[in-house]
């Protein structure tokens, strides 16, 4: 992979980390606040369903994970397994797509379901 691609991947990972930093804080704060009142799963679903704001927030959260995690896994695979080349790049891409699909599917389940 070229130096340009590596530089852009580094930038993508840093940018997604910044998004994740914000999203994780909101996510944790929401969990803590939601369980304090003793909310049931059904009550939580009643709040999230049809909420475009929560859908947008978690869609962005999932996208940031799908960008961030595979780039990190790629580095680990290279350093610890000595895995390099096209097969690694394709696997990294597949991991990103899988995370995005699974994550967005879960968001759709909570917001649309």
């Amino acid at each position: 992979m070229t130096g340009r691609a590596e530089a852009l991947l580094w930038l993508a990972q840093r940018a997604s980390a910044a998004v994740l930093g914000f999203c994780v804080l909101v996510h944790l704060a929401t969990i803590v606040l939601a369980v304090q009142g003793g909310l049931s799963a059904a009550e939580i679903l009643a709040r999230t369903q049809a909420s475009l704001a929560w859908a947008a927030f978690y869609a962005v959260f999932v996208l940031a994970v799908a960008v961030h995690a595979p780039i990190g896994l790629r580095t680990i695979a290279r350093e610890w397994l000595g895995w390099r080349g096209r097969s690694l790049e394709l696997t990294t891409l597949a991991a990103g797509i899988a995370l995005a699909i699974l994550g967005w599917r879960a968001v759709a389940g909570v917001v649309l379901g």
Partner: protein
Amino acid sequence: MTQAQDSEPESLRTVQVWRGDATGGAFAEYRVPARPRQTILDLVTWIQRHIDPGLSYRYACRVGMCGTCAMTVNGRPRWTCRTLLGTVAGEGTLRIAPLAHLPVIKDLACDMAAFFDKWRRAEGRFHGIDSVEPEIAVVSPSSPERQAADAGIECIGCGVCYAACDVVGWNPEYLGPAALNRAWTLANDVRDRAGVARLKAVAGDAGCHACHSHQSCADHCPKHLNPTRGIAGLKRLAARAALKGEI
């Protein structure tokens, strides 16, 4: 020798020294008269002068200016001329080995060729313009570029950071902290003309993007430089150049 050193008690110490070559080796034990304020280099020299003239090691200035005498002392890469026995070993075991991540020539002497080859690969040399400069470049000592260059300019190429870097151990192609630190100081030299070429040389899996910012280089550098900071700067420059399509 000072009064204090004269009055220090001399005792016999067991010192383990790595003996061997590129094909392998093992630690040998020596009994050496030692004082707490004696340097590790003095101990090694004593072994060579009095026990085994065949012991190979390297040194030049003996006063912390040249960086030639770097070795692994009790697991940490150090300048042996600036390391006192009392500070590193106390009354415990003293174990001296060659620098890590470099091929051993013999005993404590490493082949530094790979280390300096990487400086060349990182474009670690000044590229001026081909003709004579029309005017002498004026570089303000307070300009951000000069300040950034100043922070890393004192490197003397001893290899301590290279031996301390985990990433060099994992990825032998990695250029390493010293070469990248040199590239960073040159990237901040306003007279230098190799900006994009140097960024191309240092970007990528074997370059600045391999660094995990563990800061072992900064922790071990005898000159208290922080190559990690320079490498982070190279990552930022490379990202900017990549967005502009320059690299």
